[in-house]
Structures are given as structure tokens and as C-alpha cells.
């Protein structure tokens, strides 16, 4: 009898497994927070009347920057341009704000600033940077901006702001969330990483992310797929001249002498602009799919490739290319980096914004033997302009200025905090 007890106990213990394991269920509730963005419209007339020097605003979501004399023009994405008096780099002053809805990029020739305003381009007189005035609007020259998930803006008006409303919904797992965008508003997740700051406009659009570059009397702009040429011989009257198809995934444009270096997600293209109105493809260097800001000098091009975000690549590195008379660039060497973004070169010093790994300063006297001489950590860097012993660095939390007159002892001069 005792011998039967052990199997009996085992059976009694295991029996509940067999009987109940099919009965008990796991429960799951899913939740998702999102922000609904409702556009605020103004008429074209109202918008144009407000394109002038208005009172300074706090920086919330800055984009590209341009230096003109002792002024810094800093784009506030989709809102306009901050004008910063940088006559004393140790104490820059945010002096005014130019309201340009839909603005992403800018360039300056003489006393005229060119900026995009959704599909239009505006020319502003900045001879007095603290008293800017609108000179011309060139309509419909940039690709129409499109948005996610069915939202379509009223093309007879201009979006100047977005009103936001935060909501969280919770329901059983397996059900799909019903909060997609419609024709009146855009829905975006509001939980994640730093994007949805107050009064920012939504992301997810494409098309008019123009990038500008001026070479002599021409303004070159790249959109996602094409290169557009404007004749700015008469600076206050920019004239649309031509458009060249340059492929897809175009990101950056960098002029050097008679060439334009165009960075795309799939490679670097070199266009000869001896005939200023008809850029001609003369060289290209393909690489794995990544984002790739480019700069160049007489003999070499420096290309940073990074993974993540829109770049869809897996590579984080600096590629140095020998230009070989422009037509046949060849790889000299690859240097591994963390997540490189913008870069700048001043003499033998190469500055690279390495994302969350800070700002790296290299000695690039010998392109095949570039070495790190200074690593500034503790900031997430996106773009840098190094000029005249001063480096202006756009980071996630502010605009930093460094004095690199002694590259081994780079000194922070000032920081303008972003209101994020």
C-alpha cells in the first residue's frame, strides 16, 4: 500500500496542472498616450505682415544656424528665426525673432536672408539685423509638405501654430487604438523621448525640408529628391532658374569652389557648377544607407555616416575620401564613431558632433591618420560651425560657444539654454 502512495501523491499534485492550466488566463491592459495637434491658421496677408523683427522668443526647438558678421541667425523649426547678437561670444544676446511659419532652412547673401516658408521662399533685408523687413516672396518653389495619416492642411492659408491636447487611453490588449489623424488634426504619441515639447509642431512630415547653399550669384536648395537653382544676382529679387533631379534621400548640400557636395542616405554626389544654372553630376561615392553630412576641402571630402532615425543605416563612422580631381572620389580611411551628425573643419582641426557622445575635435593634418585631441562630453551635439577660433555647437539643451584658439584647452565661452 505504501508503495502506491508516492505515485498517488504525484498524480494528485500533477492533476491540477492538467485540469486548471487550461482554465486560468493571463490578463493584459494596454495604454497609449498621444497628443492631438490642431492647426492654427492665418491668411497669407496676415503672415506676411508679421515677417519682421518681433520681440525675442525663447528657443524651444532650434534647427539650423547661420552666422553673419557678429549675428547668429538660428532657425526655430516651423516658427521662424532667432536673431542673436554675438558681438561678445561670452555673453550672446537674443535680440529678436522673425516670424516665418514653416521655416526650416536659411542662407544669407550680403544683406539679404533667404528662408523657406512651407512651399514658398522669402527674401528678407537684414542690413539692420534688429530691424528686418520682407522684400519678396517666391511662391510654390518647394515641394508641397505632406503629413501623416490623412491630415491635409488648408492650402489657402498658412499654419502658424498648433494647439495640443494630451490624452491617454487604456483598453484590453489586442484592440487597436482609435486615435488616428483626420483631416482636421494630427495625432502623435506624447510619451516618448523629448520630441513633443510645448507648443512645438508635429513631426512626420516631409517635402519641404529644404537645405540652402549660396555660391556667388546662385542660391542652391535641395529637397528630398531635387536640386533647385535660384538666380540671386539681384539679391532682393530671387528668380527660380532650374531644377535638377538628384535621386532620393537627399540631406545636405555643401559648396566648395565650383562644386556642390550633396549628401544623401545612399551616397555622396558631386555636381560641377561651372555652368551655374545647370549643375552637372561629375562624381559620386556610394556607401551603405546612412545619413551623411559632408564637408570638403581642396583634396578631401569628409563624410559622417550615422544609423538610426530617418537614416535607416547601421553604420556610425567618418569616411575620408580623396577627391582625385572630383570625378573619381576614393576612400582613404574609415574612422569609427558613436552617432556622428554635423561636422566642421578649420585648418587642420576637424570638429565632429557625435550625438550623445559629445563633441570630438580631431587633428586632421594627415587625413589617413586623423587622431582625437579633445573630447567634450556631457552634451548631445547635432551641428557645429567652427570659424575664427570659435566653435558654435547646436546641442540638445542649448547653443554652446567654445574658444579653440588653444585646441588642447578648448574653453566654453557661453551657453544659451533651450526652453525644452
Amino acid at each position, binding site marked *: 500500500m505504501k508503495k502506491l502512495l*508516492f505515485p498517488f*501523491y*504525484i498524480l*494528485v*499534485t*500533477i492533476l*491540477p*496542472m492538467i485540469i*486548471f*492550466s487550461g482554465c*486560468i*488566463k*493571463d*490578463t*493584459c*491592459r*494596454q*495604454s*497609449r*498616450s498621444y497628443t492631438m495637434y490642431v492647426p492654427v491658421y492665418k491668411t497669407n496677408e496676415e503672415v506676411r505682415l508679421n515677417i519682421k523683427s518681433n520681440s525675442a522668443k525663447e528657443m524651444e*526647438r532650434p*534647427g539650423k544656424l547661420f552666422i553673419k558678421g557678429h549675428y547668429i541667425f538660428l532657425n526655430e*523649426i516651423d516658427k521662424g528665426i532667432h536673431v542673436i547678437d554675438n558681438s561678445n561670444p561670452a555673453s550672446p544676446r537674443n535680440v529678436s525673432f522673425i516670424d516665418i511659419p514653416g521655416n*526650416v532652412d536659411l542662407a544669407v547673401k550680403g544683406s539679404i536672408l533667404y528662408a523657406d516658408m512651407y512651399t514658398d521662399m522669402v527674401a528678407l533685408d537684414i542690413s539692420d539685423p534688429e530691424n528686418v523687413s520682407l522684400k519678396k516672396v517666391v511662391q510654390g518653389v518647394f515641394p508641397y509638405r505632406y503629413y501623416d495619416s490623412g491630415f491635409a492642411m488648408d492650402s489657402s492659408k498658412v499654419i502658424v501654430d498648433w494647439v495640443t491636447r494630451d490624452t491617454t487611453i487604456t483598453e484590453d*490588449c489586442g484592440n487597436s487604438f482609435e486615435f488616428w489623424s483626420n483631416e482636421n488634426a494630427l495625432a*502623435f*504619441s506624447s*510619451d*516618448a*523621448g*523629448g*520630441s*513633443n515639447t510645448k507648443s512645438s509642431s*508635429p*513631426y*512626420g512630415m516631409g517635402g519641404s*525640408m529644404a537645405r540652402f547653399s549660396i555660391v556667388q550669384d546662385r542660391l542652391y536648395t535641395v529637397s528630398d529628391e531635387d536640386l533647385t537653382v535660384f538666380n540671386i544676382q539681384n539679391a532682393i529679387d530671387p528668380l527660380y532658374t532650374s531644377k535638377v533631379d538628384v535621386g532620393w534621400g537627399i*540631406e545636405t548640400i555643401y559648396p566648395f569652389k565650383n562644386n556642390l557636395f550633396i549628401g544623401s542616405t545612399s551616397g555622396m554626389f558631386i555636381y560641377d557648377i561651372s555652368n551655374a544654372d545647370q549643375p552637372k553630376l561629375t562624381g559620386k561615392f556610394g556607401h551603405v544607407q546612412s545619413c551623411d553630412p559632408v564637408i570638403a576641402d581642396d583634396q578631401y571630402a569628409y563624410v559622417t555616416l550615422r*544609423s*538610426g*532615425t*530617418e*537614416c*535607416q*543605416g*547601421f553604420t556610425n563612422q567618418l569616411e575620408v575620401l580623396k577627391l582625385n580631381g572630383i570625378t573619381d572620389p576614393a576612400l582613404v580611411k574609415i574612422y569609427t564613431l558613436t552617432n556622428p*551628425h554635423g561636422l566642421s573643419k578649420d585648418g587642420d582641426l576637424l570638429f565632429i558632433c557625435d*550625438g550623445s557622445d559629445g563633441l570630438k575635435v580631431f587633428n586632421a593634418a594627415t587625413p589617413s591618420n586623423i587622431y582625437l585631441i579633445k573630447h567634450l562630453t556631457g552634451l*548631445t551635439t*547635432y551641428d557645429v560651425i567652427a570659424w575664427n577660433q570659435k566653435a558654435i555647437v547646436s546641442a*540638445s539643451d542649448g547653443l554652446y560657444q567654445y574658444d579653440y584658439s588653444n585646441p588642447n584647452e578648448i574653453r566654453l565661452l557661453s551657453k544659451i539654454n533651450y526652453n525644452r
Partner: protein
Amino acid sequence: MRQIIQVLVLIMVIPFVACTQEKENSKSNHFYSLASAGYLFGESGVFPVAQISSGISFKNFKLGIGGGYDGYRYNSFPVFADLRLDFGKRKKFFGYLNSGYHFPKGEETFDIWSYPGTEKWEGGLYADAGLGFRFKLGEKHNLLLSSSYNYKKVRHIKTYIFPCLVPPCPGDVYTYDYGLNYISTRLTWEINYLKK
């Protein structure tokens, strides 16, 4: 977290070591240690479990602390209070309740079409209530066979980062709150020691 687990493991392992150094002629039990392994069954499938616990005995009651590994759906490491009641003439049967907190594995990154994302898990209530039989292996050693109902609460957070031209890029966050109900069957080695 790792240090907490190390300390708990140490606390629970020391009695096993101490046990081997005891004298054989002791009379009554005051401390116990358990080491168990088994399987967990539920809607999500079959997963392994392994635990150890130690504590004090008082009449038919046992009270201690324990910890281990619970693999049901999400790997996690529970830390719990262990309450036991022996019954039957020769203490052949027992019931127990473990209640505490479990620590799931930390954070992972992933890529979907090269868009980066992160997954992380947050712990919560852990409970285990069961019944079983005791088989004597010697004066101090017993083999326990038990079956129990288990519950653990897990929060699973998935974040996808959208592509954008100017970082930091926006993301999308999905939060899943799980209440995991499952049954376990275990084989346990029990040691009673530090006799008077």
C-alpha cells in the same frame, strides 16, 4: 539590484552550509531551508522555476524569506516572504503562501527596419499559494512535492523612435500591464536544522 540579490542569496545559502556542520543528536527544529525547482504552466506556455528560501519554524508554522527565478512569460527574479503551515499527524501535508515583489529583466534595444526602439519591464506584486506532500528522507531532510497557484504583475513598455530630420526624434510608447496567472508544480528539498 545585483547587490540585493547577492545578499539575499547569501542569507539563504548560509543555513544550508551551517546545516552540514550540525550535530546529529539534536531534538527540535528551529530553522528550515528549502531549495525547489519545477515548471510553470499557463496560457503563455510552460516555463521553468527555481527558488530557495530560509526561515524559522515555530510549532506547525514556518516563516522565512526567499528568492529565485521565475521564467513565466518574462524572466524575473522574485523576492518574497515565505509563510508555511504543516498539518496532518506526521506533518505529511503542508500549505504555503509566498508574497513579495519580482524584478524582471531590465532593458533591451531593438531595431525595426533599422528604426531603433527600446523595451523595458517593470516588476510588481508576486504571489504563490500552494499545497503539497512531504516525504521524509532522513531526520533532517525531506522531499516536498507541491502544486500552487501563482500570480505576477508585469509592466512591459515598448518605445519606437520615429525618423526625423532634427533630433531628438519623437517616439511612440506602448504600455502593457499584465496580470499573469499560472500554476506550478515543484519538487523541493527541505532541511530542518539547528536542533537543541
